[in-house]
């Protein structure tokens, strides 16, 4: 299958106080369309930075990013760790934030917003304002905002890390279902091995200073998955062992 995301020899350096700090170095990654890839790694290693490079928010200092997208107006959409909703917009207007590029008519926009909110289980919430929502609901709106633009690629930066355990699990379930339904390519940054195993087809591990990919494992579990049942716990411990066996982790 052709790779929808292709990173070749990506390097990224930040200038700080006149000194250049290299964050990413010689990073190669290619992700087939429709795959769910989890990016694991210790905090501060550059996982979010990698996501921003793929999103085109940070130009790499060296190397090449190739996205083979169908060419919609917004082929890549992002979900941040904080929901990052605009407090002055209603839920519906937040979900439609990416649809205000002129080529989307009002009626089509309304329809896309409604189906995106439906998809994340917030059907009747369009008129509410962000401050009236719980943390989990806010993150659902952020997910709806990303899905509404119908991107080829969904980039998610530890989207559930700030939620309580129950909310996190229910959102993981929703995301797994949405991934099966929409077949979007997902790059999901997390520091939880359980979360990565539960959600991803492939897990890549980012580590080192400057960071590069140190491991790439495939999760041998069929979908839909369930926690605690069947092979899941075995696979988690096997992958954990595999990841810990690499000396840097």
């Amino acid at each position, binding site marked *: 299958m052709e790779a929808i995301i292709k990173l070749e020899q990506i390097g990224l350096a930040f200038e700080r106080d006149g000194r250049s700090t290299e964050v990413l170095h010689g990073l190669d990654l290619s992700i087939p369309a429709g795959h769910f890839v989890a990016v694991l790694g210790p905090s501060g290693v550059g996982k979010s930075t990698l996501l921003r490079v793929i999103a085109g928010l940070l130009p790499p200092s060296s190397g090449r990013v190739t996205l083979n997208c169908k060419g919609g107006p917004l082929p890549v959409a992002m979900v941040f760790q904080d929901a990052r909703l605009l407090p002055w917009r*209603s839920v519906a207007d937040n979900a439609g934030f*990416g649809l205000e590029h002129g080529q989307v008519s009002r009626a089509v926009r309304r329809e896309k917003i409604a189906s995106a909110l439906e998809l994340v289980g917030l059907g009747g919430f369009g008129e509410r*304002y962000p401050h009236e929502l719980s943390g989990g609901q806010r993150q659902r709106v952020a997910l709806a*905002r990303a899905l509404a633009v119908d991107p080829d690629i969904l980039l998610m930066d530890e989207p559930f890390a700030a939620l309580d355990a129950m909310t996190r699990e229910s959102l993981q379930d929703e995301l797994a279902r949405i991934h099966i339904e929409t077949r979007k390519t997902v790059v999901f940054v997390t520091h939880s091995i359980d979360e990565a195993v539960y959600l991803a087809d492939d897990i890549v591990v980012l580590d080192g200073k400057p960071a590069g990919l140190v491991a790439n494992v495939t999760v041998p579990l069929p979908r839909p998955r369930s926690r605690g049942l069947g092979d899941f716990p075995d696979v988690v411990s096997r992958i954990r062992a595999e990841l810990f066996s690499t000396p840097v982790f």
Partner: protein
Amino acid sequence: MTRARTAALSAFGFAAFLGIWELVPWLGLVPPSILPPPSALPQAFWRELSSGVWFSSLLTSLRNYIAGLAIGCLLGVGLGIVTGLWPAMEATLAWVVRALRPIPGLAWVPFAILWFGIDPAAAIFIISTGVFWISYFAALGAVRSVDRELLELADAFGYRRADRKLVKVILPAAAPGILTGVRTALGQAWMAVVAAEIFGVPGLGQRMMQASNLLASDIVVVYMATMATAYGLIDAGFVALQSWLLRWKR
């Protein structure tokens, strides 16, 4: 405290204020020509009203007020936003701002007269200078403190041009701060109206000055009350507008 109790206390406080004010000249502590009692005001107000002076002064002042406020706010908010967006602009203006900022509004009077003559334009100029600085600093601060992460969000959703970011994120995010500044400017501008008209531009300030020269202190008080009432109405109207614009806030 219940709402009714609060209202009753406010009414009582104001009535007591009027009562003491009435009592002081009545007891002969000061002559009524120096402190006219409130009971003398309706008659003075009626004289001003029936001669048509009150209405035309109020109208002229309101015109100066609104023009000065509009010009000052538009320029101040506009330049504040531009400066907030581009650090280069802020650096360029840093010393100009430092040089001009501390000049009090009244110090501009000689230049206002030189440039515009004894004309409403002079009053409008003085009013707008005061308003300009307030709204400039409010807008600059509000734009500068817009969350960087919201700007990144705009980038991530394809709003990369500065004008799109301005409309989608910066202006709405900065609106509370800008509106607070404009509200401060509303009050400041009324004070500037009197200052600007005292040197002879027609309006409430000029009429007040004439009355004070004739020792018609009751008429002076009528115009003070007029300004207080006008400010009260405008401020209440603005607060209503503000809370409607910011209805998304908790």
